[in-house]
């Protein structure tokens, strides 16, 4: 008799498989060489059925949410189960298979018990370098994938337990940081070894049949949970579009459009109407697009939903080929993870805001705002490379202001402390601050963007900036106003100021100060409805100016006392209301 899964064992087994994934993740982070994995935690680990269905995942950045669902199945298409033997480890970084950009290398290993493959394990790790035209593997100037680094089709790095040193040499020889890469491959192997040992323990405790039954049940559980949550939403179809400000090669606006249809317990997300793929590297693969869709839906509908194959079964996503959301070979894709992903998340959240406005924030800062500086360190005469992504303002919520100066949506990496930057690089941080008045006004205001000002000390340097939301600012919701736009410029040692485009690679002279400002979040609801005391508090805290309080919020603050001038405020508000009507 086939056993029937029960809800108690389900929860116990879910904990067990989840801890397998988490322990793999901990092992990967613990043994990795590069700070990318160790500190920024740009990696994921997961457990799958032998068919490649995701059972449990430990992800540290949301971008990996969609990648891990599709990655193993895509690889199995090229490398069917029959070809797998105990002790094998397949690796790939092909964006047209793995779905991510080249620096993300995926490793898959089968778990065999008595000649039967009972489960698959996978991890994804962002390597420091992958060769190609620019260090770091994320060039803004590439026009085809071949320029972005070495492409690894699915190959066995380990065959029946024996590491293929030749393949490893071929790869590490092609990257700038071969020592780190070699170490990170070792960490990836170690992570899956930990996973295999653990999953054997689970399987031997419960028996193969029970274990497989509950792997399927965990997947069904997530699906049931998502179906139930979707059923709560009202049916309807909602469209939304937004733009990227250029592909790194030109400033032409690039449109991303989505139509989201809720029908009973299913959701259809259709990107028809999105612009054709671009010449520059802002093109997303389907898997990146899925990650953004899943992120938006999970956050808006069920933030605690465990990641598994079942979680997004009720969601169908249409991505027309040859567009920004599903690029075709050999389009370059390296920068989609940084900027395009944020815009895809924005449009899905925008469409959702029409269906469930109370569960979605206004637009957030809308870019990971990447900033790199490289050159010869005059202290050590060695080449250095500073890379950081900057947060901005979070979009406001129905009942809460957006957070100031924070990473939102598809990323969540920590900043580099000024004291660390100055110890490690020939740079001086002049300022690291929130930008007053960069909020999107609203009943609840968007978060403030932030600024970092860095001076290049005693040497010329090459800088690369990748930002967005300068012209088309983060939108507000239900009467909320857009957040302040991004900006960047340089100030020479002599004091001359020069504006820079939002995406740029350029040389700067010694003593140049580079100023980067990120966008604020959009507001929610009419700024006229903001409680005047909150406006007053923001003025007191220096987050908004007296002028902005008056012009945008219609709240008059007495400069002397710092208190609200109630009479003038009432007068101004009634004027504004009349104007609005």
């Amino acid at each position, binding site marked *: 008799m086939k056993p029937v899964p*029960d*809800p*108690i*064992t*389900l*929860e*116990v087994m879910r*904990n*067990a498989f*989840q*801890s397998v994934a*988490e*322990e793999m993740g*901990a*092992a990967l982070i*613990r*043994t990795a*060489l590069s700070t990318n994995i160790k*500190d920024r935690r740009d990696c994921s680990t997961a457990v799958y059925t032998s068919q490649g269905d995701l059972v449990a995942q430990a*992800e540290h*950045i*949301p971008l990996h949410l969609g990648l891990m669902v599709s990655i193993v199945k895509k690889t199995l298409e090229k490398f069917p189960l029959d070809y797998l033997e105990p002790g094998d480890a397949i690796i790939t970084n092909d964006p047209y298979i793995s779905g991510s950009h080249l620096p993300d290398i995926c490793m898959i290993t089968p778990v065999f018990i008595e000649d039967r493959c009972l489960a698959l394990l996978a991890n994804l790790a962002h390597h420091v370098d992958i060769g190609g035209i620019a260090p770091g593997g994320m060039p803004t100037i590439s026009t085809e994938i071949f320029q972005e680094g070495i492409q690894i089709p699915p190959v066995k790095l380990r065959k029946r337990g024996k590491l293929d040193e030749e393949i490893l040499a071929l790869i590490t020889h092609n990257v700038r940081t071969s020592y780190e890469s070699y170490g990170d491959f*070792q960490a990836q192997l170690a992570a899956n070894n930990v996973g295999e040992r653990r999953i054997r323990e689970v399987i031997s405790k419960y028996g193969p049949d029970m274990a497989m039954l509950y792997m399927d049940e965990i997947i069904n*559980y*997530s699906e049931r*949970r998502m179906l*139930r949550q979707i059923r709560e939403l009202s049916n309807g179809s909602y469209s939304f579009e937004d733009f990227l400000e250029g592909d790194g090669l030109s400033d032409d606006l690039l449109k991303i459009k989505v139509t989201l249809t809720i029908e009973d317990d299913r959701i259809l997300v259709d990107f028809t109407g999105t612009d054709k793929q671009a010449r520059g590297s802002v093109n997303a693969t389907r898997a990146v697009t899925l990650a953004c869709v899943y*992120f938006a839906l999970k*956050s808006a509908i069920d*933030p*605690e939903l465990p990641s598994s194959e079942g979680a997004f079964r009720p969601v169908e996503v249409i991505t027309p080929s040859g567009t920004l959301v599903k690029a075709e070979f050999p389009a370059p894709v390296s920068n989609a993870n940084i900027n395009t992903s944020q815009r895809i998340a924005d449009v899905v959240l925008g469409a959702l805001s029409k269906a469930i406005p109370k569960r*979605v924030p206004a637009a957030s800062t809308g870019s990971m705002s990447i900033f790199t500086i490289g050159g010869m360190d005059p202290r050590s005469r060695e080449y250095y490379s500073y890379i950081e992504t900057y*947060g901005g303002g979070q979009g406001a*919520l129905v009942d*809460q202001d957006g*957070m100031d*100066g*924070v*990473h*939102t949506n598809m990323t*969540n*990496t*920590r*900043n580099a*402390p*000024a*004291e660390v930057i100055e*110890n490690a690089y020939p740079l*001086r*941080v*002049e*300022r*690291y*601050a*929130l930008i007053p008045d960069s909020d999107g006004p609203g009943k609840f205001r968007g978060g403030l963007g*932030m600024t970092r000002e860095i001076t290049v000390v005693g040497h010329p340097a090459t800088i690369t900036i990748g930002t967005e939301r300068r012209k088309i600012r983060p939108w507000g919701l239900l009467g909320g106003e857009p957040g302040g736009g991004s900006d960047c410029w340089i100030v020479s040692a002599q004091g001359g100021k020069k504006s820079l485009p939002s995406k740029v690679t350029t040389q700067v002279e010694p003593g140049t100060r580079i100023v980067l400002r990120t966008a604020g979040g959009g507001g929610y609801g009419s700024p006229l409805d903001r409680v005047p005391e909150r406006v007053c508090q923001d003025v*007191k*805290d*220096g*987050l908004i100016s007296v002028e902005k309080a008056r012009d945008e919020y219609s709240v008059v603050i007495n400069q002397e006392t710092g208190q609200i001038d109630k009479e003038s405020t009432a007068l101004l508000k009634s004027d504004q209301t009349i104007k609005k009507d």
Partner: protein
Amino acid sequence: MEKPFRIAIDTGGTFTDVCLLDDSQGELSVAKVSSTPFNPAVGVIEGIKKLSEKKKGGVPFKKVKFLIHGTTVATNALLEHKGAKTALLTTEGFEDVLHIGRQNRPRLYDFWAKRPEPIVPRHLCYGVPERILYTGDVFKALDESKTAAIVQEIKEQGIQSIAISLIHSYANPTHEQKIKSIISSIFPEGYVTFSSEVLPEFREYERTSTICINAFVMPKVNDYVADLERQLKDLGVASELYIMQSNGGVITAKMARQMSARTVLSGPAGGALTGVFISAAIKQPNVITIDMGGTSSDICLIEDETPRLTTESDIGGYPIKLPMIDIVTIGAGGGSIAWIDVGGALRVGPESAGADPGPVCYGRGGNEPTVTDANAILGRINPSYLLGGDMEVFLEEAREVIEEKIARSLGINVRKAAEGIISVINANMIRGIRRVSVERGYDPREFTLVPFGGAGPMHGVELAQALNMNEIVVPANPGIASAFGMLSADVRHDFVQTHISISDEVDVERLESIYREMEDQGMEQLGREGFSSQSIVLIRLADMRYIRQAYELSVEVKGVGLNREDILSITEDFHNLHERTYGYARRKEAVEFVNLRLVALGKLPEFHIKEKKDPGTDIPELVDYREVFFEGTTLKTSIYHRNHLIQGRQISGPAIVEQMDSTIVIFPNYKAVTDQYGNLLIKKKEEAK
């Protein structure tokens, strides 16, 4: 030498626990009184009095030589945002250091999850015109007149406490010192905390956060400690007041009034020390403690009789960069609520009924099914002996709620549902234990499990079984383990100085002189506290890393009078530690010194608990039999009273051992024996053959 008395008092959310050790007899007595959140000192004094009344002939307070206190005053001030009105002075251009933090959000998918509100509001974060470089060189001199104007403004705003944390202050303290002197001339009544004194360590956000926390809680801690000292004096207690710190050591009340942030995790640290005590007593250097209370469980790993320390902790989202015992807290306690989620899975916690209204079976208005209710239904809790019989158990009500809210929708009977609740909460706790062990490279099978807290000993056997841990040791007084652990604490001061330099190029003399300075500070401090040089232990440590790594590992620096060869052997130790911790070493790579640390310990005399002699009979007195549900079946189970278990007496599962503040569940395939210190050692039957 006259054998003194020692007292340890731990203030908890619900109860204040008091332990008294009569050092001459090795006799321990304990008491529990209700906590008094409006003024915790009331509970402390009541507890001491109650203990004295219980003890034959009372407690001669003038003979109390050590009085150690674990307090939540700092913790609560921080978590409830009820500290002093505090201002921050930092370098111009970095006023938002607290507000930006590390720019990350607390939860990936929850739009509403905010970072906690900074404890210093933005309008009280002042930028001072000055700048020091990472080398310690002054890039821009301090503008003293502008600084004075700022201090004047702060004074007029009614600020109580000032935090000073300038960029690169660890490399050159002069600007901070100047600001401090400006404050003492303009605003002498203000409390001041400055980073080059309290925490000369790099990474500005974590340092500034720590400095602000100290400034924020300091006035409250001062008031509290002063009041308590007065009351203890009135009582005639001879001992100075020692306060438990988060690092597992104690400090004098005087020190706690300046370094108040060191006391934020003082209670759980006491629990970890109980683990250390037991580990030494049973000669098992590796133990994992789990302290399961009403709403949460604190888990701590102890290796070689030493709890793991961390400098990466945060309290309620506020980072504190001071050494603390590494304790993982998970939302699993006796009051954790069972529920069925929309996907149809049985879940337990993290929501908790806490102490108020508490579990259904306590009859205080709780109407959600909890872990305690499940234990009651399974017969594991004595229906007529809660808190030694002081509290009634409402078993029927618990049964109804579990029937209605869990069993019916799962289509199973109430006992199955109750067993399910226990399985699920145990699964959560197992994940927590794996997190402190497996995820940090330890194998739980090499550890002994030490469960305590009111609820821990009920779950210990099942947890150990699931993790293949061989032995479970329940301390004699599991309900007051934190207070007990504090009895064994030493006085401890931690010092740190950031000194970033590559090991090949390090200025050895400079290194030695930094250690010397810290040692002098430590000796001086401990000397003032009455320690002779024989009872002082100094430990030098260095936080090291491969160049530009974001993490450091702490290596012990042995010996004094460092030379080049010592640097090589320290570097070698670092490679070895790195290999042990992370599985690899890069022996050809250059290594960096980052922070130099000094631990100064003032050793308190060791104490001994009187061994309980075997009275000669083998069979402990059986109190009763009860039907208890184990793994699907009801078994006739022996019930013992903990007081009747004397050294060497064996009991065989299924059995339940009851005591005033806890219940120990011994599964059918397990047996237990009491050791000479009153600990209950539980093992699998097969293995004991």
